[in-house]
């Protein structure tokens, strides 16, 4: 299941969705959150906000391809991805990746794999606004390096 939405998500509900199979012996979950991106940690960033732009159609297509690839690499029951878009603030949840499988190794690996690909191969762009000044977030080289771990 792949969802791109403005609304927040409920982790308990999403976890429950992953457990509807009595062969499920392992569930790995990753949740990405908006951390305080101000460089001054003494300042409370009430004026910090965060915007996530996406490419409707392409983003969902990219995420589905990543989920399909995870299913082809490992023996998994379910792979569910929820990614928020629009305006977000510090401490908000951004992304949920949940994988269920019979054994833990596949669940851990697939969850890690999906997040690496989501970072570098799904059409999302982040923009940070602090004290009225907006800045597009630059892609990190480390994300591409991390992706290289999965090359067959």
């Amino acid at each position, binding site marked *: 299941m792949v969802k791109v939405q403005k609304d927040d998500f409920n982790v308990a509900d999403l976890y429950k969705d992953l457990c509807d199979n009595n062969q499920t012996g392992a569930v790995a979950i990753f949740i990405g959150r908006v951390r305080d991106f101000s460089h001054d940690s003494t300042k409370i960033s009430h004026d910090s906000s965060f915007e996530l732009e996406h*490419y409707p*159609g392409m983003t969902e297509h990219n995420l589905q391809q990543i989920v399909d690839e995870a299913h082809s690499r490992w023996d998994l029951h379910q792979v569910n991805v929820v990614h928020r878009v629009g305006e977000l603030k510090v401490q908000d949840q951004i992304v949920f990746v949940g994988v269920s499988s019979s054994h833990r190794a596949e669940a851990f690996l697939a969850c890690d794999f999906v997040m690496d690909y989501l970072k570098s*191969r*799904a*059409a999302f*762009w*982040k*923009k940070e606004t602090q004290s009225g000044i907006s800045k*597009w977030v630059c*892609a990190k080289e480390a994300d591409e390096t991390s992706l290289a771990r999965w090359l067959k």
Partner: protein
Amino acid sequence: MIGVKQMHKLDVVFFASLRESIGTDKVTIELEKETTIEEIKQIVAKLLDNPDPLFHEGIQASIDYNFARHTSKVNPQTVKEVAFFPPVTGG
């Protein structure tokens, strides 16, 4: 009809910092034959007041929602949309 070129419309869309710096989110071009992403960039640049950001390092492209290379070919009879955007930063 012999001698009449069949042109096909193609939407070209832009996202994030690229959309903001060139000042538009979409242009429509007409293509007659198979054209590479790099060539499409050159065609699009002529329609923009500020085309420079399109040529910035790292600008990526997609063809009908699939990530593409600059050498990838666009068949105007089958492709609906090409996009240009900066490196993605989701998650």
